[in-house]
């Protein structure tokens, strides 16, 4: 045990900064994963979304610290590598493992913590493994970029900062020059949001994992402080890695860097009546509060075709395929805004707004329907609530928002056809 303990102490001292950064990166990833959780929900896709978004920050950090470590090692190592009897590649890969290893270990460390959290709290779903591998390879690529950058620039005071800035600047550049999504996805950062209503498209993830891993190994190979020519076996390995990188990149571009597409697993738990609401199992906590919201909505729409009977949760309530007799409901979160937005989405999807989409529909009619929707959902953030007091519709909204439920329901029943066909005028409103 003593030699092992000594080796570990020695490693800890030599790699103090990468180890510290490992802890920081782990904490950062966990923090961002937790920050991505939505109020009242405990979903693995939210945690994975946070992990994904953290790549924009962890990449530059990993790049900076690896540049620092490699630049300090490069100069003293150059002469010793030239006169070493061990192969140059094995020396460099051993050093890269010691430097990049702790930084890259931050990802599995964070995933482990999240897995323990997910298991103990019963988080819904399970992370998609190729997605995690792609994220891990992003961190590896960022660290390797910094490693090669530091080796090339040498030990200067600005080396690590320059590496971090260069990595981030490349990210900004890749996102801002109007490239197709597939080409943008060749940069090692993932900003896609995972969701329980998705079918995964693993081609891009595998493509990225292969591309970033191959590019990382190529960068480490190229970062030779002794600047030796490649031996034939190393040349073959480089050619193989280059082929892998090109293949991975082509797969990413071909699949347009797309990670997922809308999909409903119909893993529902249903409850209640008038309406009966079926929510994804992960959203079970939303049943009671959503029932309350829809019960109010049902009172206002009772006796009309808008009254909800059977609701099924779906992807943003659009382009979906609910069961016969059911309607879709979109639910973003269990907080008050999320619940009211859910009702509002239902009203706009099944109410008059669909008919208002026709080009040439007079603004006043659109406004009249919007006022009704806002009253039905009790949610006015996106329309009448933002009108200036003297603007057309403001007075009507003020009046409508104060109408008692029974009176409003009676009015809706008599004006249902005008509302649904978007022929309602402001003067028709109660």
């Amino acid at each position: 045990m003593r030699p092992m303990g000594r080796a570990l102490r020695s490693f800890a001292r030599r790699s103090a900064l990468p180890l510290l950064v490992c802890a920081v990166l782990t904490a950062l990833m966990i923090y961002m994963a937790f920050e991505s959780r939505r109020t009242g929900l405990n979903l693995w896709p939210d945690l994975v979304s946070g992990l994904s978004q953290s790549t924009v920050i962890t990449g530059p950090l990993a790049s900076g610290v690896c540049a620092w470590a490699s630049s300090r090692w490069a100069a003293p190592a150059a002469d010793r590598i030239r006169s070493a009897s061990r192969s140059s590649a094995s020396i460099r890969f051993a050093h890269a493992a010691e430097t990049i290893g702790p930084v890259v270990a931050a990802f599995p460390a964070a995933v482990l913590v999240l897995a323990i959290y997910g298991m103990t709290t019963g988080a819904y779903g399970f992370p998609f493994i190729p997605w995690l591998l792609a994220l891990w390879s992003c961190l590896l690529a960022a660290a390797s970029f910094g490693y090669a950058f530091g080796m090339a620039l040498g030990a200067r005071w600005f080396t690590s900062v320059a590496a971090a800035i260069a990595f981030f600047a490349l990210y900004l550049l890749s996102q801002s020059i109007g490239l197709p999504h597939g080409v943008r996805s060749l940069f090692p950062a993932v900003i896609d949001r995972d969701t329980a209503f998705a079918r995964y498209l693993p081609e891009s993830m595998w493509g990225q994992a292969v591309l970033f891993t191959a590019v990382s190994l190529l960068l480490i190979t190229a970062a030779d402080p002794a600047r030796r020519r490649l031996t034939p076996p190393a040349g073959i390995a480089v050619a193989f890695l280059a082929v892998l990188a090109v293949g991975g990149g082509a797969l990413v571009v071909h699949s347009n860097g797309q990670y997922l597409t809308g999909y409903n697993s119909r893993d529902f738990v249903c409850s209640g009546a008038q309406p009966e609401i079926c929510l994804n199992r992960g959203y079970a906590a939303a049943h009671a509060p959503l029932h309350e919201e829809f019960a109010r909505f049902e009172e206002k729409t009772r006796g009309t075709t808008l009254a909800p009977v059977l609701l099924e949760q779906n992807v943003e309530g659009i382009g979906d395929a609910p069961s016969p007799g059911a309607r879709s409901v979109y639910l973003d979160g269990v907080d008050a805004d999320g619940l009211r937005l859910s009702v509002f989405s239902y009203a706009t999807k099944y109410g008059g707004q669909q008919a208002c989409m026709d080009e040439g529909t007079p603004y006043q009619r659109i406004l009249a329907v919007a006022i009704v929707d806002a009253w039905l959902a009790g949610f006015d953030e996106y329309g009448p609530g933002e009108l200036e007091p003297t603007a057309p519709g403001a007075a009507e909204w003020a009046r409508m928002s104060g109408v008692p439920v029974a009176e409003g329901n009676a009015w809706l029943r008599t004006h249902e056809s005008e509302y649904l066909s978007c022929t309602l005028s402001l003067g028709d409103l109660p």
Partner: protein
Amino acid sequence: MLSACGLTLRRGRRRVFERLDLTLHPGITVLLGPNGAGKSTLLQALANPRDISSGDLLLDGGSVLESRGSEREYLGDTGFMPQRWRFFPGFTVSESVEYVAWLKRMSRDAIRDAALRALDTVRLSERRHDRVSRLSGGMRQRVGLAETLVNSPAVVLLDEPTVGLDPAQRSVFRAALREGAGDRITLLSTHLTDDVAVLADRVIVIDDGRVLFDGAPADLSARGSGDGEAPSRIESGYLALLAEHEGARP
């Protein structure tokens, strides 16, 4: 015995040595020469035979350049301290020496003992847990010497190892080198004729890619007048040799 046979060495595009023949025997050979004479180029080529453009290098009669295996074996039997020896930041004295032992493909079991032995030789075993960055310049040079000796090499190559050391540090370094060199083939380049007087069993003077003198220190001293501004007989002989060579230039 290490023999260079018809070596051609380049630095960039410039040809520094052309068809150089040289044989080194056990003992300390000091390489003298003015700046740019090619001392470092020669030492680096001997330490890193892949830099040799043409010719052959024989260690005990076997060609070093014959195959990658023979080259690797040669490198494992060589210790080299470059002119600008740089230490690894954050490494302790023993870690530095052990790291070089690892680079020389020593077995994991042997590394620690070998490092301790090398540090004993350079009188640094007491400081083995200190970081190299905290040592004085003279001590750091001795860490470099320990790194050079850690694999018990048959060939020791030292490129101006005493440059920048004060007289006391030089004295300690030379004593350590004398002890460490033992019966190894040691080639040491220097500007300091003191090094020749204290260390050399043999002196080689080079300039313009040519060997101007190859013999015993006493023979070099004998070339000097013993008067003038030169502080020692050896330096006087060395300067006389260079003046003679300068005069013979076309």
